[in-house]
């Protein structure tokens, strides 16, 4: 991109290298920690007790356990897939896109009100959102007192009976703003002339969206998918604070499973194997999305 060497850069190479040093050290620490996690996935290291000191190499035992244990990694994986699909891809991304395309026709009060409303969810700290949704869906909470009790029905303990849908909705409520903002920026980047031209050529509203706008903002869509899929995939505090993975294991996504195994039960070695497996899954997903990003328009 930069064709010639710039003199103010080349004459200050040492200074610039020195400026990069803190970042290099911190990145080195990150690599070290990651390598450590990878190494210890082949051991039976424990958090406390004898295995915390006298750990031993166990080869691929931890990885075998991922696939052989019932009610373990595989079940957690499917819970996570459901959670990510409905809360991130269907919920946040689609809703964010619909809102962005509906609201860009207006600059009025309504737009401000909707934007502020969804931003409030996004800005709220995870633990507050967890507390708020636990309370909203509790037997004396908002949903029961407005929609269930007035009709003479027995209050429903949503967090117990519909745990996964409740955390999914809570996450949509919390996360839609990110997708919305990104899609607003994306739609603004589409030149008006292109849409006008398509309109003159007789394209319907739907055709303009599907065949003109969407292909043009595909890099934005891919970026958004990449970010929210991975965030949701490894998202921990909301579910942990609301349900702790329960009731039973109904909401035990991989991040919660990892925490429960590593810190709850103290199986650090097995926990490390879970995080390596999660990294592999995330890596494959990213490659898929990055391909979407790179393909010619």
């Amino acid at each position: 991109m930069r064709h010639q060497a710039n003199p103010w850069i080349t004459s200050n190479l040492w200074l610039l290298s020195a400026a990069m040093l803190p970042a290099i050290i911190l990145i080195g620490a990150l690599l070290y920690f990651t390598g450590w996690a990878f190494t210890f996935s082949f051991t039976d290291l424990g958090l406390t007790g004898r295995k915390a000191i006298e750990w031993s190499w166990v080869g691929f035992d931890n990885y075998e356990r991922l696939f052989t244990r019932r009610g373990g990694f595989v079940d957690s994986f499917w819970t996570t897939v459901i959670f990510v699909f409905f809360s991130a891809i269907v919920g946040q991304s689609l809703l964010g896109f619909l809102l962005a395309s509906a609201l860009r026709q207006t600059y009025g009060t309504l737009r401000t009100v909707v934007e502020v409303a969804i931003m409030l969810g996004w800005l709220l700290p995870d633990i507050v959102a967890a507390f708020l949704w636990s309370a909203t869906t509790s037997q004396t909470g908002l949903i029961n007192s407005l929609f269930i009790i007035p009709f003479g029905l027995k209050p429903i303990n949503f967090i117990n009976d519909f745990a996964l849908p409740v955390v999914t909705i809570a996450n949509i409520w919390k996360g839609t703003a990110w997708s919305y903002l990104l899609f607003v920026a994306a739609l603004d980047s589409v030149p008006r002339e292109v849409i006008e031209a398509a309109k003159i050529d007789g394209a319907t509203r739907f055709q303009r969206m599907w065949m003109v706008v969407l292909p043009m903002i595909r890099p934005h869509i891919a970026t958004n998918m990449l970010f929210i899929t991975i965030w949701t995939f490894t998202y921990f505090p909301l579910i942990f604070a609301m349900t702790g993975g329960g009731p039973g294991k109904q909401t035990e996504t991989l991040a919660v499973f990892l925490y429960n195994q590593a810190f709850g039960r103290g199986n650090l070695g097995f926990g490390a194997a879970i995080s390596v497996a999660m990294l592999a899954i995330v890596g494959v997903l990213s490659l898929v999305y990055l391909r979407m990003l790179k393909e010619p328009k």
Partner: protein
Amino acid sequence: MERQGLSRPLAIALAFMAIIWVSPFAWLFGNAFDNAALGRLAFPSEPGVENFVEAVSGNAGRMFFNSLLIAAGTATLSAVVGICAAYPLSRLRMPGKNALLWTLVLLRMLPAAGVLVPIYFTAQRAGLLNQMGVILTLTVLNLPFTLLLLKNFFDTVPIELEEAAYVDGASLWQIVTHIVLPMSKAGIAVVWFFSFTGAWNEFLLPLIFSRVEAGFPMSVGLYAAFGRQGSIDYGFLTAFSIVYAAPAVAVYFLLRRNMNTGFAGVGVKG
């Protein structure tokens, strides 16, 4: 695009959605301003601000300052370290630097709980099981994103401006502080804001790092309080939640203009 306004049903649907979106806050405020709150959805039976007084004094007040220290410390450290490294990264010709940055971002996708164990052991040995340790760890975890975003922003600063300044005899320091930084203000604001809210919200790390209650930030304090079995003091918890949520919301609305321009740069460039 043509701004023909919204059709009526669409406008009503959007307004309805906004109401649903903010309705949990009704409960929150109803209880926070009720001195005799019972956790029900109702108008305050004894309106007052006693809960807020409780939520900012004593232990709760200390938690607020712990959170503030962690969030401002992390945001500032991340931005400074990030700027120092991102400008050379943007301007120097290095083969494969984009691939390197994306690899780092990918690496950072590792669930935080996965690297928590080695980080915990290292911090314990270095005597960093305190706020300083949390700040450093969060900076390490933020850095890949910070670098990628800032580098993309610095890439958009036209090199011709820097050339012109150089020809006029400006030093590297002057070029950076007078041209590059002012022109990427929006990007820096985004990075600072993300690090700030990220650290302010952070729950898992301080949960494991703060061994004594005096070191708890608000996230851990709130979790400890509502996770506790038995009688829940709804009045205190709702007020505490509002106090905890307020700074992140306030910082956003202060930086709002910058944020919206800044978001355009988040996308696309690899």
